[in-house]
């Protein structure tokens, strides 16, 4: 999966001022890591949250569903999981910057 067009699209949106100014775009990881992360998001997050992120046993991850939720707490949920729910911690597989980039990616409504 090529994330190049996605990064370019997000950059273009930012340049147009179409992306919320409060949400600074985290730097996209270098390839091939970015593609690996999008694969992980698509397949492994998608296993519970749905391939199109509209939810399953996991909650929906669409921009509407994530609206108003602080980026930091969403990134923390990815990294640490949510105890008492099936959401596991993904810290063994990605770092903080990468989690923030995935949150940003999801909030843009971009699909893998």
């Amino acid at each position, binding site marked *: 999966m090529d994330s190049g067009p996605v990064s370019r699209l997000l950059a273009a949106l930012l340049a147009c001022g179409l992306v919320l100014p409060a949400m600074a775009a985290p730097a996209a990881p270098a390839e091939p890591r970015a593609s690996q992360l999008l694969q992980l998001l698509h*397949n492994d997050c998608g296993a*519970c949250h*749905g391939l199109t992120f*509209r*939810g*399953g046993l996991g909650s929906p991850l669409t921009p509407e569903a994530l609206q108003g939720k602080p980026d930091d707490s969403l990134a923390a949920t990815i990294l640490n999981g949510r105890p008492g729910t*099936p959401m596991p911690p993904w810290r063994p*597989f990605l770092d903080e910057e990468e989690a923030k980039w995935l949150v940003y990616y999801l909030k843009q409504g971009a699909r893998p």
Partner: protein
Amino acid sequence: MAGLLPEAGRTALILTLSLLLAACAAPPLRGTGDLGVVIERASGSVQVVDNTHQRSLGRIQGLGDLSHASVVFSRDARYAYVFGRDGAISKVDLLTRQLVQRVAQASNSIGGAISSDGKVIAAQNYEPGGVRLFDADNLALLADIPAVTGHNGKPSRVVGLADLPGNRFAYALFDADEIDVLDASDPAHPVLARHPGAGKSPYDGLASMDGRYFLAGLYGEDGLSLLDTWRPEQGVRRVLAGYGRGEQAMPVYKMPHLRGWSIAGEYAFLPAIGHHEVLMADSRSWAQVAAVPVLGQPVFVMAEPSGRHVWVNFAFPDNDKVQVIDVPSRQVIKTLQPGRAILHMEFTARGDAVWLSSRDDDKLVVIDTATLNTRSTLPAREPSGIFFSWRAGRMGM
């Protein structure tokens, strides 16, 4: 022509020509007992495969969002009902490879079942939470049975739907900790029997092959819930409770799946949640017999039809491996690495081969269960579920 041929000759000629025409128009005669459906999750298509000759017969497109899709068969094993995540049911003809009917019946669905008389299709839905019944012929809606309101204030998501004898269906409620049995003998007016207090967060369920027991796996506790449908008045009881006692639960990166292939002969083989073990239980008393250590979080734990071996695949990050457990010695005898992201396994009817789907290598791998050698590989687009038509004649499948 009328003047040249006697009446009898003319009739014979017409009959012969008609037969020839029918032969051109119809596909060659064949049975469906060795056919199957492979889900190609990302492209919204399915392949129809022949498991005797290990080949693809064709592809049917346009089935929508097939992430977590599952399939049941009409009891003549000609039609497959494909349940998509997007809430659609697609009825597919295995012989002509045509999509014959499709209904969008919910916005988020997880699977379905077919009644013991073959006339009713039941869909289990997350959104709106509940079960809907359809006519198996034309997919016309027969009844809507919303699930009871769950902890989240919405009708609970339904998991583990399985058919039982007498046109009944059993299922569990993820958000309401309940097992329900729906009697659809009058499908327009089904009767619901509820069993609350069935354990915390059931994530999937199965019916035993005789349709007597319904078992729900629990995410929220170490244990499973069992309903003996011969004795429903006894209610639901906990089995294999506390299987991980004293051990730290590990994170689960993919929910395991349960179905009737978990039970073979005198044993049931079940995935532990948060523990890298396959639980082995007596299939009558349901007492734990053993816990077999495996290399990761089991997802599918499937007994060969003979019951001699049990095959296990795993959650991320161990989903490139498959382990084979020898039942008498209760030990792993082989670890295979057949491809990246092995999402599903399906045995042929009598278990001479097992088909595996490798999502990230875009292939199906056919393994000989006697030698554990690969017989062949077939191309497929991000394959997930594989469903063979022998399921048509089996309860709980």
